[in-house]
């Protein structure tokens, strides 16, 4: 029988630990596929965060670093400055990137570090059990926001892509979703572009991927896809915020 779909060489054989219905697995696969398609897997060094994807170093089939919470862009900077001809990426969640690691991500972009960041935004702290994140939506319940997030005491959800797009060094910034097939295809294209920008030495690239967390949202995987579409996309609009002009 002909094989019509196979696991990418960009991932190891290690079984994911992610919860049923979580979209980390899809995003991992897209990154792995892109690294293989670009022919750069053998010269790639990835940096895993603290959060649900803390064990990503076991899943990507390339050299990896496990970083301290939020520090992945600094770790990636250190790697890239020693090995400018290698490909370096960070894979970070919203607690990691949008809360404890805001300084590191902003300044990696500000310096125009030639690295690629995959930013998985599921509007909650997953690994620690569903606490409020800077990205948690207004009214969304979390274990540290039992009545739902309130503007008066916790502010409005942080829009990282919009913020990073104001920085000159961030030459590629796009927000995508993986809640449906069309979104997955667009996400892969954006991830590929973000790595190409790095390979061309143009600057910092980031792809924000809206992602689900059925376990901590307290709904089923199917309901989660719908919840993402109906609640997250209106607040976190999809699209490209920055892309290098052709020929530059």
């Amino acid at each position, binding site marked *: 029988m002909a094989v019509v779909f196979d696991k990418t060489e960009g991932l190891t054989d290690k079984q994911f630990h992610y919860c049923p219905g979580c979209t980390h697995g899809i995003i991992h696969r897209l990154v792995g596929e892109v690294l293989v398609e670009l022919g750069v897997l053998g010269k790639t060094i990835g940096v895993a965060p603290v959060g649900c994807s803390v064990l990503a170093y076991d899943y990507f089939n390339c050299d990896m670093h496990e970083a301290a919470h939020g520090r992945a862009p600094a770790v990636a900077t250190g790697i890239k400055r020693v090995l400018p001809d290698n490909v370096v990426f960070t894979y970070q969640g919203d607690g990691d990137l949008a809360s404890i690691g805001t300084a*590191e991500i902003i300044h990696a972009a500000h310096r125009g570090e030639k690295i690629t960041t995959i930013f998985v935004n599921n509007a909650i702290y997953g690994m620690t059990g569903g606490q409020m994140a800077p990205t948690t939506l207004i009214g969304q319940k979390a274990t540290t926001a039992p009545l739902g997030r309130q503007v008066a005491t916790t502010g409005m959800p942080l829009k990282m892509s919009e913020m990073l797009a104001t920085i000159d060094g961030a030459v590629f910034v796009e927000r995508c979703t993986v809640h449906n097939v069309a979104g997955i295809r667009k996400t892969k294209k954006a991830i590929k572009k973000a790595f190409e920008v790095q390979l061309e030495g143009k600057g910092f690239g980031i792809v924000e991927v809206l992602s689900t967390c059925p376990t901590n949202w307290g709904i089923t995987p199917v309901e989660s896809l719908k919840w993402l579409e109906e609640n997250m996309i209106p607040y976190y609009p999809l699209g490209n915020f920055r892309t290098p002009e052709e020929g530059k």
Partner: protein
Amino acid sequence: MAKVLMKGNEAIAAAAIKAGCKHFFGYPITPQNELPEFMSRELPKIGGAFVQAESEVAAINMIYGAAGTGARVMTSSSSPGMALKQEGISYCAGAELPCVIVNISRGGPGLGGIQPSQADYFMTTRGGGNGDYRHPVYAPATLQEAVDLTMEAFDVADYYRTPVIVMGDGMIGQMMEPVEFKETTRRDLPVKDWATTGTEGKRKPNIINSLALDPAELEKHNFKLDARYKEMEEKEVRHEMYKVEGAEVVMVAYGTTARIVKNAIDALEKEGIRAGLIRPITLWPFPMKAFKDIPETAKALLSVEMSTGQMIDDVKIANEGKLPVHFFGRTGGMIPAPEEIMDKVKEILGGGK
């Protein structure tokens, strides 16, 4: 090579480059600024990189990334900045990453001051970050020693796969002395086959990591590190003995303070009072065995520090309750004068004030 007159911070930077360090990540803080400034000037000339990080926290994490690729890397800071670096130092220790970290220390606590101090002894020798780790700490007393120890620090870091601290008080960073960059006999260093340089499809991925969720696995890892620390305690201890033979009071001091203590010892000698010095060159591992060589003539030990008394804890451990242990210290950036130390020695011996 001929001797050159250099400022301490620049001499340490030059020594690092001589030892093969081509990548430096740091953040401005007084009194160590000449070190990163020197690096920003010199590293691009040799195909290396200088990065001014957004914070000390970021700088030490850049070190974690760069060291993971197998490169010889350095960061430097001063006391409040060193406090910020502790997270990353702990990760480097856990992930077994060789790197050299310079602390040109100043007065504290908090923002403290910018004058020389030795108040970071606890933070530096007791594992300032979380978890069960140690790292070698060199405390030079002259700029020549700062140069020699900085070069040695890179070898020690690579040999044991550990962060190494070079700690000079602000005086060491700011003063000028003639120094010589000597060719040293290099250790036989292991190949860095663990480094993340890309698999090139030829080997399994290398992973730089300090996470171990299985407690049995983490205990095994910690015991492995501990065995290495015990080896360092055996092989890497350095100290100097000064006029200890026949001494009635044996002082213990390091860095700049040790130089002032030597002046006090010489002056006391002229007055017919015999005093000596044990000068730890490594603060960790601490020269415990040196205390076994204290002669019968000794009536007391005196720990002299630019702090309210931190190293004295190690002095007491090393002394094993044998002799009375006294303390004299100035703090907050105040530097002890030889006369003050002499008075303290006389007081201990029952004379003087």
